[in-house]
């Protein structure tokens, strides 16, 4: 893995941890971070690794429909991952997860429609990527040309120090995931316990949270324990 890709992979969790660490009680809140949908991520990561390696035995899958099939699989996995992380979550976390999912879908759409993720040759030069890597790009990427569609969602933003070119979708993905982690961590355990049976209609913003235990701190007493204390 190149330093640029390593930095890209770590940016969301590191930003979330820094934001939490700077808040009062944030370090304790880090222990409440919970993310679901690991299987969706695992399948997508396997497809992404396959795209990058581009082995001959997987050619029929990787290049099916002009390379659109693996991109569509990635998009479907992104939707599954987002849905797995919206059940029982506060509204802000759902919104953040949706932003992350939108970023992933934009990346998948640009990749599917162009047979590979388009990248700006000029941006790649600005990022300091050598001419050989531009002329013979990583499998799964194609240079932008006159026939490229959805250019606005392609890799067009250079980061010179990291030899990296990223897209609008990447930014949405990073920001959405980091925000989702922060919101989930700062959610107080008291916010997700079951309301009393006679408490009337649910308040806006808490609908659906009372069936989930995913966000409840393992160290917190149960609703029953609290009501009988």
């Amino acid at each position, binding site marked *: 893995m190149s330093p640029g890709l390593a930095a890209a992979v770590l940016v969301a969790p590191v930003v979330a941890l820094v934001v939490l660490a700077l808040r009062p009680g944030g370090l304790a809140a880090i222990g409440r971070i919970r993310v679901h949908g690991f299987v969706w991520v695992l399948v997508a990561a396997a497809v*992404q690794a396959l795209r990058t390696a581009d082995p001959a035995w997987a050619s029929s899958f990787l290049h099916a429909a002009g390379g659109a099939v693996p991109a569509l699989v990635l998009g479907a996995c992104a939707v599954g991952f987002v849905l797995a992380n919206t059940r029982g979550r506060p509204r802000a976390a759902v919104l953040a997860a949706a932003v992350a999912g939108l970023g992933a879908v934009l990346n998948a759409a640009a990749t599917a429609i162009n047979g590979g993720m388009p990248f700006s040759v000029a941006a790649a030069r600005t990022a300091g990527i050598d001419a*050989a890597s531009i002329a013979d790009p990583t499998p799964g990427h194609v240079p932008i040309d006159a026939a490229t569609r959805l250019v606005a969602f392609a890799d067009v933003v250079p980061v010179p120090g990291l030899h990296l070119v990223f897209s609008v979708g990447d930014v949405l993905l990073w920001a959405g995931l980091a925000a989702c982690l922060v919101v989930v961590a700062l959610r107080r355990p008291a916010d997700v316990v079951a309301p009393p049976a006679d408490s009337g209609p649910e308040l806006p913003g808490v609908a659906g949270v009372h069936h989930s235990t995913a966000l409840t701190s393992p160290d917190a007493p149960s609703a029953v324990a609290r009501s009988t204390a």
Partner: protein
Amino acid sequence: MSTRPSRTRVVATLGSLATVALAVYAFAAPYTKTN
């Protein structure tokens, strides 16, 4: 009562952070040099 986080909780948190990192690898598609 001890305020030290349990091992299960630490593992769950680290696993969640690793899942997010893996999600970025899987769903983001930044272009980097090949070598």
